């Protein structure tokens, strides 16, 4: 059921402020991760940003990327998580 593409979804939830996208994009650039798509909405007064990224050869479980995203979130009062896209494909596609 897993796809061959090594892509991930980054979800940011919290209060909107200047520099969220910049901060996360800079972080991703350090790992040479390309952003395929970004969408933003306000849902129930919560700022929500969803990024689709191409991980190339990076393995989430063997990298400190998720910890760094987490730390960035904590410093800015946000929740930032990264999850491999296969999870969403498994749950939402027959």
């Amino acid at each position, binding site marked *: 059921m897993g796809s061959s593409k090594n892509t991930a979804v980054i979800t940011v939830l919290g209060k909107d402020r200047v520099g969220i996208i910049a901060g996360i994009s800079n972080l991703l650039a350090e790992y040479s991760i390309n952003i395929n798509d970004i969408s933003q909405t306000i849902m129930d007064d919560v700022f*929500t940003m969803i990024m689709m990224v191409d991980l190339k050869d990076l393995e989430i479980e063997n990298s400190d990327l998720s910890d760094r995203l987490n730390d960035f979130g904590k410093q800015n009062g946000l929740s930032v998580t990264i999850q491999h896209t296969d999870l969403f494909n498994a749950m939402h596609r027959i």
Partner: protein
Amino acid sequence: MITDYEVLETMHMFTQEHLDIRTITMGISLMDCAASTPEESCRRIYDKIMRNAGRLVETGEAISRKYNVPIIHKRISVTPISIVAAASGATDYVMFAETLDRAAKDCGVNFIGGFSALVQKGYTNSDRILINSIPEALAVTENVCSSINLASTRSGINMDAVRDMGHIIKKTAERTKDSGALGCAKLVVFANAPEDNPFMAGAFLGPGEPECVINVGISGPGVVKHAMEQVKGQDLGVVAETIKKAAFKITRVGELVAREASERLGVPFGIIDLSLAPTPAVGDSVARLLEEFGLETCGTWGTTAALAMLNDAVKKGGTMASSFVGGLSGAFIPVSEDEGMIAAARSGSLLLEKLEAMTCVCSVGLDMIAIPGDTTAETISGIIADEMALGTFNNKTTAVRIIPVPGKTVGDSVEFGGLLGTAPIMSVNNSSCADFINRGGRIPAPIHSMRN
């Protein structure tokens, strides 16, 4: 392309609705660990478990990190020890339990199941030794779980074993009374025990299972409750459909994790057990989910009907999501592990007799029920006999995990801590069934067992 709604729904399930992979359980056959001395057999058991499960915990953690999905437990199930130890000549199997305990600790898993015997039709000498070793084995180990299959639709009910287990449960309670009779929380008796169940305390690897296998248990009563909150007041057909969809999604998470674990460990994937297994956390309760159907308190009239529909809809959604659904799959109704059940039992709305009726349509049975310490062994055997009959005659799995807490009576409660929770002591009908239980023998298999 995944939509924003789908991403947020998924996030919400994990962060707000307590969706989790409850356990990755590695089944390891110990058939080739039989030896002519107990020392040699134990050495082989320890080595084989370490060889197969040494990387289980780290693999679980890596998968959890990749998908940001909580994987709560990594566990091991093994061939029933009564089979493995039979050739060893030992007259007591506590040493085998200690070996399992040591292997579990060294692998970093929190439970190992398989201090077990299958006696639905009668005892082997080894089964007798194992059963007599249970009280001591559960007292001197921390991570070992024990299960005994007493009945099956094919074989009927072994009433000698039902009688004996009443005494064994009492002894286990007495032997572990300093910890609230915790030993009994690690001991379960079954009718029609599944051989591939990943959930404790009943996990063991049946004789028909492969050398080594990965079984995954997944849980999410909170997800189903949340889904049901979206269809308040609508008819029950809509509710059934809603539960099926939620069950489908959570089963797919289990399937993904199971396949990945199987690949990484080089061990075949066995089954997904899609069970709504509650925890004491608020929002992770099967009782509250039943109340969402429109019941004031779990245990009132309508509870059995709601549970029947829930259990069935969960299975239907699950089987659509994975080709290999097995184990217990359905809704668990343990009392001490479910915040809503505890509240219902305390309020007097949920009685033992009603729980028994509910076990006719739930996936397991009377689970994590604390009763007064002065309940007789025969009464406990009577409770077991009734539950075994429900399973045997209705062609389903049933079980009893009951805890007669020494020194406690109705109105008290006992604290086990962690996922095992808190159990209010429930009232038991003490009118004697001793003469019935002491007859012994076998209850013949029901007529509908003859399907050949």
